C-alpha cells in the first residue's frame, strides 16, 4: 500500500498545491496567525525577566538561552497546521461529506498529510523571514545556533515531530466516525501536547525522574529536544531521539490506517 502511494505521489502534491492556494486567498488570516509566536515570546520575556532577577541560571539555562528556547518552541508549535484540519475533517465526517475520499483514488491519510504539510510550508515561508529579522534585531538576547550540525539536527527532529503531530491529529479527526462531537478530545489533546512538548515551560525544569519518564514518549522530541539541540544542549540524545520518534511515527501510522479501515464500516455517509 505504501508503494502504491509513493507511485501516485503527484496527486498528493496537487492536494498540497490546492491547500497552499487556499491559504493565499486569506492573507489577512494567515498574517495574523504568523505573528502569534511573537506574542508568546513577548510573554516569555516578561515572565522570565522577572524570574531571572537575582539569578543568572535557571534549569541549566541563562536568560538568553531561555529566550531562544521559547522562540524555537513557539516557532515549531506554530508550524503545525494540521490541528486546524481536525475541525474540517471532523465536520466532513459529521455532515456526510467525507464520502468523497472513499470514492476517489486518494487515501484520506495521504490527503490529510499533504494538506497539513502544505499549510506548514506556507506558514514557514511567511514566519521564517520574520524570525530571522527578529533574531538579528534582538541578537543580544536571542542566540544563534550552537553549530550547523545542531541546526540540522534540530530541523530534522522538528520535522519528524511535525509528522508525528500530523498523524496524531489525523487519528483525533477519525474519532468523529465514532463520536458525534470531538471538540473535547481535540482540545484536551492540544492542552496536554502543549505542556508535554515543553512549549509552556522547558522540560529541564521538571524533576529528573519525570524527564526520565518523558524520554519514552514522543512529545519530548517535538519541541523540547529540537530547541535544546539548537542551543547545543542534549546532543547525546539526538540519535536515541530519532529512533524513539521514528518508532512512534511508525506505530501511529499503522494505528491510523487500522482505525480508518475499522471506523469506515460504521460510517453512514449522511449528515447529522
Amino acid at each position, binding site marked *: 500500500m505504501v508503494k502504491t502511494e509513493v507511485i501516485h505521489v503527484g496527486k498528493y502534491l496537487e492536494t498540497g498545491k490546492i491547500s497552499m492556494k487556499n491559504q493565499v486567498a*486569506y492573507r*489577512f*488570516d*494567515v*498574517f*495574523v*496567525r504568523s*505573528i*502569534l509566536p511573537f*506574542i*508568546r515570546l513577548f*510573554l516569555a520575556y*516578561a*515572565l522570565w*525577566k*522577572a*524570574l531571572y*532577577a537575582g*539569578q543568572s541560571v*535557571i*534549569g541549566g539555562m541563562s536568560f538568553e538561552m531561555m529566550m531562544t528556547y521559547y522562540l524555537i518552541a513557539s516557532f515549531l508549535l506554530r508550524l503545525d497546521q494540521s490541528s*486546524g484540519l481536525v475541525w474540517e475533517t471532523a465536520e466532513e465526517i459529521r455532515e456526510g461529506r467525507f464520502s468523497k475520499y472513499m470514492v476517489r483514488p486518494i487515501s484520506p491519510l495521504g490527503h490529510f498529510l499533504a494538506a497539513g504539510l502544505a499549510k506548514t510550508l506556507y506558514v514557514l515561508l511567511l514566519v521564517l523571514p520574520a524570525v530571522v529579522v527578529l533574531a538579528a534585531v534582538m541578537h543580544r538576547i536571542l542566540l544563534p545556533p550552537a553549530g550547523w550540525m545542531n541546526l540540522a539536527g534540530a530541523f530534522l527532529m522538528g520535522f519528524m515531530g511535525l509528522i508525528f503531530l500530523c498523524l496524531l491529529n489525523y487519528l483525533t479527526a477519525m474519532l468523529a466516525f465514532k*463520536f*458525534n*462531537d470531538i*471538540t*473535547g478530545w481535540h*482540545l*484536551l489533546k492540544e*492542552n*496536554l501536547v*502543549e*505542556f508535554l512538548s515543553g512549549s*509552556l*515551560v522547558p522540560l529541564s*525544569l*521538571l*524533576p529528573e525522574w519525570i524527564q526520565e519518564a518523558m524520554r519514552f514518549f514522543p512529545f519530548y522530541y517535538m519541541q523540547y529536544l529540537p530547541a535544546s539541540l539548537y542551543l547545543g544542549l542534549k546532543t547525546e540524545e539526538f540519535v536515541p531521539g530519532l529512533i524513539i520518534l521514528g518508532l512512534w511515527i511508525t506505530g501511529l501510522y499503522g494505528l491510523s490506517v487500522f482505525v480508518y479501515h475499522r471506523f469506515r464500516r460504521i460510517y453512514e455517509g449522511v449528515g447529522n
Partner: protein
Amino acid sequence: MKTITRHLRLIKMFFSFRMSNQMIYRASFWTAFFVDVSLFLIHLAVFQTLFFNVDSINGWSKYQMVFFVGTFTLIDGLEMWLYFFGVTSIPMKIREGKLDIYLTKPVNTLFWLTFENTDIGSAFICIPGIIMIVTASINLGIRITLWKILGYILLLILMLVLLYSLMLIIRSLSFFFIKTGALDELEGELISISFRVPGVVFRGITKLILYVLLPYALIATIPTQFFTDVLSGDMWLLVLGVVTAFVLLSRWIWRMGLKRYGSASS
C-alpha cells in the same frame, strides 16, 4: 424596571431552552468543563514547575499564583456559562446572513445573541476555581472580611464585563473582514496573557499597553491583587476607567458594524 424584569425573564427562558438542548448530548455537556479544568491544572503544574526553581515571581508567592490561577478559572467558568458561546457564534451568523432573524425580533439583538447560547456545564468550572482560591487564602493566612468579599465580587463582575467587551470588539470585526478565524487565535493568545503571566511582571510601556490599550493583563491580576495584597485608589480608578472605555468602544464598533451589515452578502 419593567424592561429589566422582561430581560431577566428572557434570560431564564434562554437558560431553560439551552438546558433541554444540552441534556440530549450528555458527553458534550461536560466538554467545556473537562477541557478548561485540564487547561488550568496544566497551568498550576507550570507554576509549580517554576517554583521548583525560584522562590517568587516579582514578589508574588506560590499561593498568590494559585489564587491568581483560581481567579481566572472562576472568571472563565462564569464567562463560558453566561456569554462565551453566544458571542463566539456572532461571526458565523454575520457571514451566513443569519443575523437577519435576530434583527427583526422585538428584543435587543446583542442581548439575544449574547445569552442564547448559555452553557450550564461550564458553570462547574467555577468549582475547582473556588477550591484553588480557598486553598490559597488559607495558606496565605488572609483575614477575610465582608469588604474583601464584596470588593472581590465587584472586581470579578467588572472583569467579566471587560472580557465581554474585548470579545465583542474582535467578533464585530466580522462585519468588516470575511475570514476572522485567525483573530480568534490571536484573542486566545491575548487571553493567555490574563492567566499565564501575572500583570505584576509587566513594567513601563508594556504595562501601559497590557493594562490600558489591550487590558488583558488586568483580568485575573486585579482581583488577586485586591484580595491577597492591596489595591490602591489609583488602580480602582484605572479599572473603572478602562472598563467604561471598552464598554463604550465595543458598543460603538458593534453599531458601526450593524450599519455595514448587508445580510448574506456580508
